[in-house]
């Protein structure tokens, strides 16, 4: 009986989505979504209910909870809430599976609620066509790869799965759907769809069988993607497109993280993904208060929105790998000596994180500072404050904790060459 416990989360999400789909006011839809997302998070974390040692399901559930809790009702209707819950349910189911074919089918299924939401609105109907072309191809390739793998055709399976994954994860040059989606769809839905779920889990299942050379090629493509997206994000004039490229860059970094750990990405990377959800939702919250956001000139009043601005900055710095946040630990994992990346790729990763930091600070300065004018916008609500407080506490404490444990001992360690010298404290590596 206990083997069915992990299904509680997806079941609660699916039932809630079905209920919302029957029609109800926006506010009630958000309340039900919030409850279902909370149940799914508890189900992935509760002792005794966790069948897999990976934190990936918990990260997906936490991302979903953040997306639902911070989705503004201005741009997110009941249909979008139902879509978020369905995407989460399918992603969670996919991460519970061990059969590549089941995972690939579930993964393909996550695109359906997003496509349905895009089709539902006149101004995104055209995009739904492009989305279907890209994600339909990705789904077909992943299922075909899983089938080939089950038939014993290892090499063709590897190639086909990789192309499918490259589309799903938005790697260059198969990425064009991703910025368009983030620009037009409700941000909560985009965040849930881009949560580190299916693609990475499928990657972890098939990556065990990959020869090292293949992994090297994929890592290189992912690093190039991260750098390309970071450069694109730093130069955008629209906040949504800048966010889209930031998400794309982080998605590529996550692929590298997954490949480096030869399985599901390690905890720090998963927490960074939850921080990204919070960061994206801070933009959604600001957009709901102020309308379309431009990055061309400073146009915000920090005094009006100090908490939203602080949350944006702290979560953004965490994404950009700033010291004292979990992002630093995550980047450390990629660029450290223990990793298998070449020195050139590690330097490219550093350049990508530097550009991401520039994009984050540009967003902070242009959206939250530079003018005394305001539109009467209010700072965070109690619900938003609670979620942002929890997120920032998690991101900072998880980033500072390693420093608390190693920094004093590292600083008090002997200088090399000193008579008391016993060991070279030569960590961490960046």
């Amino acid at each position, binding site marked *: 009986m206990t083997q069915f416990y992990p299904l509680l989360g997806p079941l609660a999400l699916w039932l809630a989505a079905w209920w919302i789909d029957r029609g109800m006011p926006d506010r009630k839809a958000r309340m039900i979504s919030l409850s279902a997302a909370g149940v799914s998070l508890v189900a992935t974390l509760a002792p005794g209910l966790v069948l897999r040692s990976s934190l990936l399901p918990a990260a997906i559930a936490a991302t979903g909870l953040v997306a639902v809790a911070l989705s503004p009702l201005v741009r997110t209707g009941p249909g979008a809430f139902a879509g978020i819950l369905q995407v989460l349910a399918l992603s969670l189911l996919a991460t519970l599976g061990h059969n590549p074919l089941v995972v690939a089918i579930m993964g393909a299924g996550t695109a359906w609620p997003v496509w349905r939401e895009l089709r539902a609105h006149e101004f995104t109907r*055209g995009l739904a*066509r*492009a989305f279907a*072309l890209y994600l339909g191809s990705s789904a077909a390739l992943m299922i075909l790869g899983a089938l080939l793998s089950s038939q014993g055709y290892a090499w063709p399976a590897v190639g086909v799965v990789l192309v499918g994954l490259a589309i799903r994860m938005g790697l260059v040059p198969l990425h*064009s*759907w991703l*910025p*368009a989606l983030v620009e037009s769809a409700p941000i909560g839905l985009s965040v849930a769809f881009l949560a580190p779920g299916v693609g990475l889990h499928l990657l972890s299942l098939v990556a065990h069988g990959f020869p090292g050379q293949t992994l090297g090629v994929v890592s290189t493509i992912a690093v190039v993607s991260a750098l390309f997206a970071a*450069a*694109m994000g730093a*130069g*955008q*004039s629209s906040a949504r*497109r800048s966010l889209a490229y930031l998400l794309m860059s982080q998605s590529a970094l996550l692929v590298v993280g997954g490949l480096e750990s030869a399985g599901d990405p390690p905890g720090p990377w998963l927490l960074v993904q939850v921080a990204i959800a919070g960061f994206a939702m801070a933009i959604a919250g600001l957009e709901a208060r102020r309308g379309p956001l431009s990055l061309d000139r*400073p146009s915000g*009043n920090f*005094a009006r929105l100090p*908490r939203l601005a*602080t949350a944006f900055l702290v979560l953004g710095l965490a994404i950009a790998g700033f*010291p004292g946040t979990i992002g*630093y630990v995550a980047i450390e994992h990629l*660029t450290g*000596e223990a990793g298998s990346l070449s*020195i050139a790729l*590690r*330097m490219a990763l*550093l*350049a990508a994180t*530097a550009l991401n930091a*520039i994009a984050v*600070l*540009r967003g902070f*300065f*242009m959206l*939250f*500072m*530079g*003018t*005394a004018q305001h539109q009467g916008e209010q700072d965070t609500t109690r619900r938003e404050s609670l979620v942002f*407080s929890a997120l920032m506490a998690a991101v900072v404490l998880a980033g500072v904790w390693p*420093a608390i444990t190693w*920094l*004093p001992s*590292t*600083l*008090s*360690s*002997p*200088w*090399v*060459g*000193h008579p*008391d010298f016993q060991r*070279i*404290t*030569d*960590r*961490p*590596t*960046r």
Partner: protein
Amino acid sequence: MPFNSHSLEVLLALPFFTLALLAITRWLGRPLSERLTVGLVGLAFGLALVGIFGLDHPEDLPSVAFLALDFVLVGLIAAFSSRYLHREPGFHRFYLLLTLLAIGIEVVVLSPSLDVLIVGWELVGIASTLLIAFFHHRPNPVRHAFRAFITYRVCDVGLISGALWLHHVAGTTAFIRSGDWAGLAAPAGTGATVVAGLLLLFASMGKSAQVPFSGWLPRAMEGPTPSSAIFYGALSIHLGPFLLLRSAPLFAHSPLLSALVVLVGLSTALHATVTGRVQSDIKSALAYASMTQVGLIMAEIGLGFHTFALVHIVGHACLRTLEILRSPSLLHDHHHLEQAMGSVLPRTGWHLERLVPATWQPWLYRYALERGYFDSWLKDGVIGRFVRLVRSIDRLDQAWIGFLSQPPGPRAIDEAGRSLRGTP
């Protein structure tokens, strides 16, 4: 051991505790009173200053000099600002960022390896950026803060890449003790040393506003005067020379690198002294004066006069902090003097201007007004091109998705094709 554990507890825990308290109370919307804020910051760094005497081996000269400067100046600035920023809306933000700066400097100075130094280096960078944008209701401080951050971040890539490179070629970035100084070990092979040295020099140039990355420094003076004094007169601006002192063994192995450091330093000093002479506001003039001295310090380090450079750093930091803090009241005094004399005060510096041939003077004047053309070159030639390239690629991307989003049919393809070609 260079530091006993109790000293470190005082040195590290109190400032961290103060920072956490200031941040949490501010986030909760219940900031501490001004008096309590100043008292806490002063107490934390006062006790930290006492903690220096508990260091077991205080003979590492740069560490002790920078730590003492850090704690004394942060304490003084905290006391000075309690009146200067009294009832300013950003009072608590200022003290929060001041504490962050002091912690960053502390980590940089106490770090036993380049890896740990990076942590403090980046903390100083973000504190500096946010303080430049302190007066956030005006667009210019915000733009200037962003400009400074871009410079910091780009040059930080040099520092972190330098650490990666040293791990790759030497296996360590630990600072090795040799007499009164600690520094990096030079990797085997001249090529590897030169690469590491170039990356670290690049990092130093950004942090210390050396040419061609000098444009952000006068603009950084948009922040409150006390923060300008401690960042760009005393602590942050001297982190570049500090890094070079830590990297001195690398430069000692390569005459080419040393010559490059001297060249960068002297070029900056020359550029800053010429440009500083045409500045019409006192803080910009002081920024260029600061840049001149830091350029000279870099040249001293390149020439191997390390102790002299350290003395120069300490002396310059103290003098420049005093000058910047004095500058607002000095303007007031000048106005009084001019009113009393009934005329404009006589100009200074004629003796230098007489040394410059008359034919050069217009050219130099133009050069100084344009700030050496470095700013426009970086803004239009580098950043502008980058942004234009990125936006062109993005337009192509959008056109491609627009093409795919069209319903199938000859007309749709034709429209999308025109869109791709950029025709209306």
